[in-house]
């Protein structure tokens, strides 16, 4: 046992050293800084940075937008990818081709399709041209509240393949004879879906939910490339806020915002993991 521990230490050492230097120590430092006044030497100021942060209008805007984006984008993504996975789980023509094409956006670097998004969503873009054909007025997609729905589209485009693969794996792990027994006992398609598919897919769904939320934070790349440091108000996310605080050297607000975000993610993750465990124990 103790020998095992010593050996484990050797295997872990390279990772643990680098991980501490580049992730753990920075995090602890940031946490500490969020309670200081930022001068060299740093006086502790308690929660003042947090109070300042919560009073800052641009932080509130950014936090609100991030929450709104996650609240709209994530459920939409999960519903769509779930539909895809269920439909792809049956025999279809060109099935593997279809699967490949839904996954391809996943590997395409964001920077290489930005121009295409511009072609579509610009004021003079294709989408407006289509609207014009239909006799409707154009919409300033990137400079109005619509901008967030554009980013939702990009988020779904990029991530639907990932979620679909996870859900397909979940679906395929449900034994076929469950369905056979159920239909022998006279359960219809919908009942089978509700009582077999949903129940056995739930553990996978927890994970898909977690990954989708995490990936929703990465959408910053798209917005940054499309709209720069200061996009339209609706698109101003927490990551923009943190990036800008960094360039404005406002370390206090930045570290306080980062600590709050870490707190939220840790709570969310452990909550989801706990819910998953409880669900599994109940269903066994």
């Amino acid at each position: 046992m103790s020998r095992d521990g010593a050996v484990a230490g050797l295997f872990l050492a390279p990772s643990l050293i680098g991980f501490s230097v580049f992730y753990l120590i920075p995090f602890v430092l940031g946490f500490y800084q969020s309670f200081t006044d930022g001068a060299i030497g740093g006086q502790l100021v308690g929660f003042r940075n947090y109070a300042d942060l919560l009073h800052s209008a641009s932080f509130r805007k950014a936090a609100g937008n991030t929450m709104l984006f996650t609240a709209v984008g994530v459920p939409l993504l999960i519903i769509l990818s779930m539909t895809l996975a269920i439909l792809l789980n049956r025999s279809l023509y060109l099935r593997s081709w279809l699967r490949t094409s839904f996954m391809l956006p996943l590997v395409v670097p964001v920077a290489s399709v930005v121009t295409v998004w511009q072609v579509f969503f610009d004021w003079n873009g294709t989408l407006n041209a289509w609207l014009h054909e239909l006799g409707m007025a154009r919409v300033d997609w990137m400079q109005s509240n619509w901008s967030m729905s554009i980013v939702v589209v990009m988020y779904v485009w990029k991530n639907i393949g990932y979620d679909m693969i996870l859900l397909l794996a979940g679906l395929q792990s449900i034994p076929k004879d469950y369905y056979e027994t159920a239909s022998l006992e006279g359960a219809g398609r919908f009942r089978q879906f509700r009582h077999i598919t949903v129940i056995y897919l739930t553990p996978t769904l927890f994970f898909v939910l977690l990954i989708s939320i995490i990936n929703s934070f990465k959408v910053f790349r798209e917005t940054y490339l499309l709209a720069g440091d200061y996009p339209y108000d609706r698109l101003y996310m927490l990551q923009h806020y943190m990036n800008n605080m960094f360039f404005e050297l406002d370390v206090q607000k930045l570290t306080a915002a980062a600590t709050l975000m870490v707190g939220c993610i840790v709570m969310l993750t452990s909550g989801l993991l706990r819910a998953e465990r409880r669900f599994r124990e109940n269903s066994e």
Partner: protein
Amino acid sequence: MNNRPSLTGLALSMLFAIFAAAMLFPIGLTLVSSLMSEAEISQNYDLIGKMVDTADGGKDAFVNLKLLPDWLTIQQYAQVLILSPKFLSMFWNSVGLVGPIVVGQIVVGSLAAYAFAKLRFPGRDKLFFVYLMTMLMPFQVTLVPNYLVIDKLGLMNHSSAIILPGIFGAFGVFMMRQFMAHIPYALTEAAKIDGAGQLTIFWRVVLPLAKPGLAALAVLLFVDYWNMIEQPLIFLQDSVKQPLSLYLAQINQSARGVGFAASSLYMAPMVLLFLYAESYFVEGIQHSGIKG
């Protein structure tokens, strides 16, 4: 379920094919446009980002979505590859950043993963949870302290500022642990009884069995880091050292035609890698499921 698609299956397949085509459209349009001449590009897309005043008698003007080039030309590629050396040098910058990260994270990650998956030590699960958490954090969260650490180590504006944090990223540890956890204890125990040390077991038993995992990890890491934008944006202010992602962000606005060609070349390695190693890619994603 029988193996031959039914009539509804056919209808569904067609519906899906349309949806799939829409998914592929941005990629296809980039490729097609990269084969158009600069003149054709500007003729069709010049209106992007311009506020045309339609009030003073002018007609409504829009960009013209052009699906087929008037004539094919590799003019843009020649421009990108031969006439502007910047592209190639930044392409190699990207390779020089991503290559060491992928190799490094695989080595460091699988060593640590072995400890998490096959060895018992106090605090193991708690430590793993910490790794898991950092994997989930957005880059911006540790921006300031990371900056301080990298500054202190004298790495600012040096490619190591990107490579080193990349090598020690938690994702490799996480995914290799998931793969190794599926290797039966019976195998490692048998090797132990035969008198093999842990290093031998790791090298001779576990690592060969985890090969699909290594391949999957390599593919996923490659895709992820090829796409990185935030890290070089902060830590590599010197434009000579920047990777392609940032170059594209600049060029897309100034010279659209060249941008399309550069974009195509930028996504090509990833798309080819994906088509070649799709099964590993799928397996990698499936194993990233937390349970197991």
